């Protein structure tokens, strides 16, 4: 809508991105975490296409890099807040605040679907790989600093993803996460955690039916709680904050159980999705 008359590359990912950025602009109530994910994706996209520019522009790169840094700093702060929450020494109403609108996360899709969507918005070329190839002049070292930061993000990434709800990372989900990692390599992998953590409330204001109208949504209403399909971080759902809170303080074994069921349910959902 805004881009009327704009020169635009006509490939699918760009178009999808445009839709999202328009959604960002038009839909002021888009969940913050998703806005952030969207901006981050665009930043990385821009940094990736950086070296294709005829005229490398330090000013622009610095501004983009600072935006990435800002987002990263936010995420880091959130992740450092979470362990305290985990300890249970903070009242439960505080627990609701995990930085990414857990209220919305009850209405959500399994993370497998989320990442699927996010992956579609990316060009097939791996952004991180291409960034690595940048020659070693000063400009590129500025970019490589972003890369280092990305690495750091990757290191800390499991913390927000797993630590948010459980004291101990549940093994079944962990393995599921690894599979995910192999699927999306490079930057997408580095930011896989972002996708897991911050796109939780992805569909808050967009009705599921609108976006995935080819998906049979009847199942969501029926036998199992949708929120239990979320990655652990996504579990703080409004319907069951108490259950969740108990879970946090529970022993790891019971967590494991919960997660196994989650994984089974997930398999089930994926089957349905693939089938449809």
């Amino acid at each position, binding site marked *: 809508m805004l881009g009327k*008359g704009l020169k635009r590359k006509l490939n699918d990912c760009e178009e999808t991105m445009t839709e999202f950025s*328009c959604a960002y602009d038009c839909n002021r109530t888009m969940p913050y975490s998703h806005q952030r994910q969207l901006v981050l994706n665009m930043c990385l996209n821009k940094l990736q296409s950086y070296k294709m520019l005829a005229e490398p522009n330090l000013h622009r790169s610095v501004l983009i890099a600072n935006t990435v840094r800002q987002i990263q700093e936010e995420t880091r702060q959130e992740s450092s807040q979470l362990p305290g929450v985990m300890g249970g020494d903070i009242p439960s109403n505080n627990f609701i605040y995990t930085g990414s609108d857990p209220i919305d996360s009850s209405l959500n899709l399994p993370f497998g679907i989320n990442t699927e969507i996010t992956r579609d918005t990316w060009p097939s070329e791996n952004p991180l790989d291409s960034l690595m190839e940048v020659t070693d002049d000063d400009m590129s070292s*500025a970019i490589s600093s972003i890369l280092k930061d990305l690495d750091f993000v990757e290191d800390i990434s499991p913390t927000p993803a797993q630590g948010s709800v459980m004291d101990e990372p549940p093994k079944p989900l962990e393995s599921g996460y690894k599979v995910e990692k192999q699927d999306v390599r490079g930057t997408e992998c580095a930011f896989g955690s972002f996708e897991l953590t911050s796109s939780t409330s992805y569909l808050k204001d967009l009705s599921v039916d609108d976006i995935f109208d080819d998906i049979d949504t009847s199942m969501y209403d029926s036998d199992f709680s949708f929120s239990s399909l979320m990655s652990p971080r996504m579990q703080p759902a409004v319907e069951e904050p108490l259950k969740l809170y108990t879970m946090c303080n529970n022993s790891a074994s019971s967590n494991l159980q919960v997660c196994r069921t989650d994984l089974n349910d997930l398999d089930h959902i994926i089957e349905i999705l693939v089938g449809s």
Partner: protein
Amino acid sequence: MTAASIGLNSQDCDSRNPGCYCRIPATAYRWDAAAIARAQLLSPGDRHDVILRQADIISTVEFNHTGELLATGDKGGRVVIFQREPECKNEPCRQGEYNVYSTFQSHEPEFDYLKSLEIEEKINKIKWLPQQNAAHALLSTNDKTIKLWKISERDKRPEGYNLKDEEGKLKDLSTVTSLQVPVLKPMDLMVEVSPRRIFSNGHTYHVNSISVNSDCETYMSADDLRINLWHLAITDRSFNIVDIKPANMEDLTEVITAAEFHPYHCNLFVYSSSKGSLRLCDMRASALCDKHCKLYEEPEDPSNRSFFSEIISSVSDVKFSHSGRYMLTRDYLTVKVWDLNMETKPIETYQVHDYLRSKLCSLYENDCIFDKFECAWNGSDSVIMTGAYNNFFRMFDRNTKRDVTLEASRESSKPRAVLKPRRVCVGGKRRKDDISVDSLDFTKKILHTAWHPTENIIAIAATNNLYIFQDKVNSDMH
């Protein structure tokens, strides 16, 4: 005169192709003649059919100190100088017309073999030197190299040399039997442009500004990370007066976006940064002005905080007022007037296109958010002007606080036509002739504008077209 009441007359010049730089008698009273003259300039077919060539996009506009000359630079490395028609009592209407005076190729594309980088020929900035004699001089710069050009007129030629014939060949000495005094004969006016100095190898990054000092002997050039001070006569050395390059480029978070000398304190200069701040430096303090003497910065408004806060606060241009008391800065959404004596916040802030605040994500996505709009003062520092999208430009009257949006387009600015104020409608109430935010054309942007140093004449660069508008009230008085 208020900004809102400025009735502007138009004259536009096509800079699409160098062959078009002819005298265009585009006046009201000669409207037909003008139309014909311009039609002849064009290649067959409608001018709108001509594909916009990147090289023809105007990249800078600058009046000289008297306003008699106007220089434009383009992406193709060319400089075109326009001259104002001298005042003529018989045809008062012609006064104020700018016609092409000279065109020359200032910069050529180059290649840096060491860094394996192309150096574009695009003219980033032009600055006129104060006139010292009959000739004019200007500095032009691309990303790396600054050049000093001399522009002089010749309307007489010497004739009757003793040892040379008409073509300049040496005569056979045996034929020289008598001596004569050579005489100057009048001839058609010829404008000669010659390169006088080439200041190269001073910049690692892209030069974004040049500014001539009021001492008329030195000038500075600023790139993303450094500012150099040059003597106009010395090309093989410059002094580095600001260097914000961190020891480790990974720590880089800020770049220099523009720099300018104070109009009459030769020791003072200001530079702006991508973080939205201005630093005033005093060269008397130390040779290296890494420590500013004043930092002008406005605290961020938390209510408008977004992911793009820093990007939109990046200052794209800074200009001292003619009085030297104020500074004008442009960031993505606003223009601000700063008092040199107040560092904490600007004394005035004007919204250029606040309706874009809700579109920032899309503007980031399509890179428009990185556009570098310039800003300009009028001769009396009472009105400020800056560009926007959709070929719109904005004027703000500092006294009455009125503002106006005008459009530079072929359709609306026929010669001598009076520009109608335009309005961008936000929300439901849409009046006739209003344009909605969603139908703005973001490819048509007015980045470069210039205001005549004393009169109400403005030059607007809209991609490959140069528009010159004149205050109607003012011109009618002549």
